[in-house]
């Protein structure tokens, strides 16, 4: 037992002291933050207000186009040819032409632009015109505006999960995001740290220190010590990543947030200045409504995240992280012991990596339907459960399923560790021979 602790200590300390570990631990969160900051930055900077002039010969649509942060519309009363020729070099980005007979010929709307028309602008113009024509036609058919108003209902659903403890607001979006992140982290860590175990076992074998070591400790102790040591390194790294990322995010978030507010204000002001006084009132109202709405969505998601089973998620993440890692790293270790160099690992790697990759792919499906049969089955099988179950847990999983999955995973890694130990004890002393699958199978049943 004492020897296992010594081995764990060595494996842990030598890895944590490595430059690559320190660099990865520091650079990881920075990269993550930079990535997010980049996305947010791009979103902010793309808010580039465009001015659109509209020539409405039908006079049906004046004031019906809503001003947004992206688009400002100005209605003109002029000759089309004159406007067209004047567009080039003017302050306007596009010209929308609505003919007089729009009701009869709805496909005659034209949008002129120097640089090409964005899909967004096209969509907005089309839907505004469509909506207005609809209203006009309904009015013509004898339906009054008030009837119309009352017929328009804004339907937006609220998802509520029924569980013990009564109704809770839940957000499928928040659940999928958290589930997806957890699953991805487990997927990543199995590969990163499993491969570390494999490489370091091969290294011990090729440097021939292994024979010195196993004259002092049992091969099984050596293998377990290494697996546990690397697991602790993984947990340390993830822990540091979470702490550092949170730190960097708080600082970075403040800077980005300020910039966000500034740019929003700037946009609003420049928008307002360009509008006639009565339209300014309208626009202000619109802005308030829309910003109020987006605020609601954000608070909704945060609120829903609060209702997620956070404690369950954290505990089960730790368990499935460790369990999935143990299951696969034992197999990686067995491969590492069977080969003479890293380059020989290929032939044995495929059957190990296939279930991991498959699990990750199935996770994409499960995230959309976390209670399907596929989801339930794959969250039971130990080879896929660490990833699949983590996707499902934020959506709420019956307790019996979690317990069964946990027990199966424990059984699963005990089984792979046993197999791996049998292969390992033979493999580490077997030099200069290309090993086949058949031989690996035989090794399992060798006596000591």
């Amino acid at each position, binding site marked *: 037992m004492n020897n296992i602790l010594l081995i764990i200590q060595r494996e842990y300390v030598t890895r944590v002291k490595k430059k690559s570990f320190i660099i990865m631990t520091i650079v990881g969160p920075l990269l993550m933050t930079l990535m997010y900051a980049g996305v947010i930055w791009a979103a902010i900077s793309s808010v580039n207000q465009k001015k659109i002039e509209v020539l409405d010969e039908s006079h049906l649509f004046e004031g019906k186009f809503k001003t947004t942060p992206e688009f400002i519309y100005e209605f003109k009363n002029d000759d089309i040819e004159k406007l067209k020729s004047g567009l080039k070099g003017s302050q306007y980005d596009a010209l929308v032409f609505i003919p007089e007979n729009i009701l009869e010929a709805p496909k005659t709307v034209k949008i002129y632009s120097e640089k090409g028309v964005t899909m967004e602008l096209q969509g907005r113009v089309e839907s505004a015109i469509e909506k207005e024509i609809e209203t006009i036609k309904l009015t013509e058919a004898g339906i009054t505006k008030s009837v119309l108003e009352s017929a328009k209902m804004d339907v937006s659903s609220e998802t509520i999960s029924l569980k013990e403890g009564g109704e809770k607001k839940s957000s499928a979006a928040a659940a999928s995001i958290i589930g997806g992140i957890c699953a991805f982290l487990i997927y990543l860590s199995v590969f990163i740290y499993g491969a570390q175990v494999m490489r370091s076992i091969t290294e011990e074998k*090729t440097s021939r220190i292994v024979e010195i070591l*196993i004259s002092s400790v049992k091969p099984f102790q050596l293998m377990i010590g290494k697996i546990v040591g690397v697991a602790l390194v993984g947990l340390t790294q993830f822990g540091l990543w979470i702490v550092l990322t949170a730190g960097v995010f708080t600082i970075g978030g403040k800077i980005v947030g300020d910039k966000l507010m500034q740019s929003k204000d700037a946009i609003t002001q420049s928008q307002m200045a360009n509008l006639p006084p009565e339209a300014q009132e309208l626009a202000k109202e619109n802005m308030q409504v829309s910003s109020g709405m987006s605020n609601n969505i954000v608070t909704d998601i945060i609120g829903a995240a609060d209702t997620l089973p956070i404690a369950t998620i954290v505990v089960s993440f730790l368990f499935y992280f460790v369990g999935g890692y143990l299951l696969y790293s034992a197999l990686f270790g067995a491969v590492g012991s069977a080969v003479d160099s890293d380059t020989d690992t290929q032939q044995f790697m495929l059957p190990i990596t296939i279930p991991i990759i498959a699990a990750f792919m199935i996770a994409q499906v499960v995230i959309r339907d976390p209670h399907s049969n596929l989801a339930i089955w794959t969250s039971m099988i130990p080879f896929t459960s660490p990833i699949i179950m983590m996707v499902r847990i934020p959506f709420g999983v019956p307790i019996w399923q979690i317990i069964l999955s946990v027990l199966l995973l424990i059984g699963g890694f005990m089984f792979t560790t046993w197999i791996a130990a049998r292969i390992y004890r033979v493999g580490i002393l077997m030099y200069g021979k290309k090993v086949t699958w058949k031989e690996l199978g035989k090794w399992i049943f060798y006596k000591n």
Partner: protein
Amino acid sequence: MAENILEIKNVIKNYANHRALDDVSLTVPKGTIYGLLGPNGAGKTSLIRIVNQITGPDGGTILFDGHPLAEKNIYDIGYLPEERGLYKKMKVGEQLLYLARLKGLSKDAAMEKLKEWFIKFDIKTWWEKPIEDLSKGMQQKIQFVATVLHQPKLIILDEPFSGFDPINATLIKDEILELKEKGSTIIFSTHRMESVEELCDYIALINKSKKVLEGKKLDIKEQFKSNTYTLEYFGEELVSTPNFTILQEEAQLDGSKTTILKAEEGRVGNDLLKDIVEKVNIRAFKEDVASMNDVFIKAVNQSN
């Protein structure tokens, strides 16, 4: 206190396709240097691994210091394998400390012993160096220190001199003798017969999974002596007498002759000399002692 550090009785070891050890019995007396010899693939390494409990035997018993070999005995054994290496990136000091602690030494005890060895081998400046910065010979020294640091009762050295220059080889040889003085028993496996000649008190020879011979080195050499004598002389050519036959005669440039005489059954050097001394001028006369090389080749050929 048992008289023998190791008693191996009828040990059998099977691998998938062959029997590596077939009913092998050896007795290693305490405080000796015991040469374990044999051609490549004879089963020496299999035997050594069983003693180190790296693998288990399929049959037979092993007594260590009078008791059945047990797990705790790994602390009483120091093993220097033939195929050996160290963690390349790890520093010399850290590495030795780690290996010593795996052999059951406390950190402080290991530190103290390491200091002695670093002074003895004059390698104090190596402590902070990573192993990969050392030459092969330097690494071998570190491995030797790792093997004997915990003062084991039994030290098993597999080709300990490979990779050493003559100066370091002598250094290690002296250390081995000193360890023996201090009461350790050393099992010494090698193909270099001159070091067997020089160091071993006992030898055992394994060939094709079986023990071929075992005993005191001097007894075995006696057993394998050819009963021949080499004579250098001036004068008329000798002829065979009832006491000896001439096997070979060779004239030298200076006019002397070198002859190999085979003594007849029951005759010794003095009987031969009586016949010769009257006839020729003797420059040199000595009994041919079997070299370990001869013993090895003869024994292996006989058993084939």
